[in-house]
């Protein structure tokens, strides 16, 4: 393929994925509010449109028309930079997550992933590490005590859980022998998913993903009763919306990553749909829907956990990260290496 064809296909995939992501984010917020209301025996938003279905658009419109307040004690440049970093990180990490197998359209063979690079996992790790800067900058530059405390706590939390996250991925790499996400999905095959082979790694990765995305039970950076709004106390209008958007986009990317690394990506268990003799375009659609279904289930799990488990105390959070998750993820690596040596997986 020529440079322009590669760029054209990439832009097409980016446009499709970003628009789907934005739509999902809007409705994820809506579903979160409805599910939380359901969990707490309330009604939730049900006025704008049928059963509140237009609520996300009303929210965005409201935030768009609000005044952008920057406190006079704030460092204006960094205060503006923080939400930009948060959004940048949230809307770049999806690039290496495969949502389907390679397809053949006309004379082109197109992998259903924006960038099919063999360092995909390193790319994700590098960018999610940048996310710490958004939170730290936001907390430091606001000139508010709540923001500062929230920002510092949050950066400590995120770097602590990044370690167990990195070690958990080590177990996946042992089996896949590659950092390329498509290879990781392909080696898991139909049903031999990493979640079954290395349950400890799966659990530590999911817990770390919760901590990295600052979701409850790990949402210390914005612990409302003690820190008002945490690192985004002093943000308003679309800058606040930027953080909000980034948080939910990170949730989507995190569940996509969990599906890719541990739940077999787009693979479907039990049925081998290649041999059913379906028309050529149908298996691809089934694969993509399988991927989206797994992601949706995980997103529901994210929301479900948020409204079921109370927030950790700060020292409990750090103890869990350093004294439980870190040793467990190390044990996981030894476990997988032992499995490979004994059973030649």
């Amino acid at each position: 393929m020529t440079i322009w064809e590669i760029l054209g296909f990439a832009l097409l995939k980016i446009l499709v994925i970003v628009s789907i992501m934005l739509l999902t984010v809007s409705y994820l917020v809506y579903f979160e509010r409805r599910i939380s209301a359901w969990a707490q025996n309330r009604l939730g938003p049900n006025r704008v449109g049928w059963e509140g279905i237009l609520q996300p658009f009303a929210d965005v419109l409201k935030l768009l028309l609000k005044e952008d307040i920057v406190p006079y004690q704030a460092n204006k440049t960094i205060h503006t930079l923080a939400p930009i970093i948060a959004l940048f990180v949230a809307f770049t990490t999806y690039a290496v997550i495969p949502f389907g197998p390679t397809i053949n359209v006309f004379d082109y063979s197109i992998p259903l992933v924006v960038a099919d690079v063999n360092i995909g996992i390193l790319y994700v790790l590098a960018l999610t590490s940048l996310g710490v800067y958004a939170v730290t900058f936001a907390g430091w530059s606001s000139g508010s005590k709540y923001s500062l405390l929230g920002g510092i706590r949050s950066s400590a939390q995120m770097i602590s859980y990044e370690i167990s996250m990195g070690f958990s991925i080590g177990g996946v790499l042992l089996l896949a022998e590659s950092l390329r996400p498509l290879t990781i999905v392909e080696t898991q095959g139909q049903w031999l998913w990493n979640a079954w082979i290395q349950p400890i790694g799966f659990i530590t990765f999911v817990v770390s993903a919760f901590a990295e995305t600052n979701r409850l039970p790990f949402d210390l950076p914005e612990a409302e009763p003690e820190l008002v709004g945490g690192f985004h106390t002093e943000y308003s209008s679309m800058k606040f919306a930027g953080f909000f958007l980034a948080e939910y986009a990170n949730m989507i990317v995190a569940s996509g990553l969990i599906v890719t690394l541990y739940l077999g990506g787009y693979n479907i268990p039990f049925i081998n749909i290649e041999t059913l003799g379906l028309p050529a375009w149908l298996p691809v659609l089934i694969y993509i829907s399988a991927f989206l279904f797994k992601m949706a289930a995980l997103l529901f799990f994210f929301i479900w956990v948020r409204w079921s488990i109370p927030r950790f105390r700060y020292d409990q959070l750090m103890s869990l990260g350093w004294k439980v998750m870190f040793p467990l993820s190390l044990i996981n690596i030894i476990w997988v290496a032992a499995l490979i040596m004994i059973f030649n997986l």
Partner: protein
Amino acid sequence: MILEYLPILAVFGFAIVFALATVFSSEIFGPKRPNAEKLSTYESGMKPVGTTSERVSIKYYLIAMLFIIFDLEVVFIYPWAVQFKKLFNQQGISVFVSMVIFLVVLELGYLYVYKKGGFKWD
């Protein structure tokens, strides 16, 4: 080979444009009526007291140092993990043992920090 990374460049460009558009859109659409109370930082309705450029607990610094040490360990694990199956078939158990020795050395450091109370946050 290098063309594989072209889509990533496109993703970066798109993300930067998107982020800038989001953050600066309220400058265009939102009202601009600042006053002194509105521009002061939030402190539960009180006048803000003191500054935020004060010292931060040493504990956070310690966490950052520990993060660097153990995150480097992760970086050393990855190339080993990717090559493990191949090297194991060639050289046998010594591939595993060498990594275990490396981990044990680092975990001695971990135990030292643990004993010294580096993981206490109360």
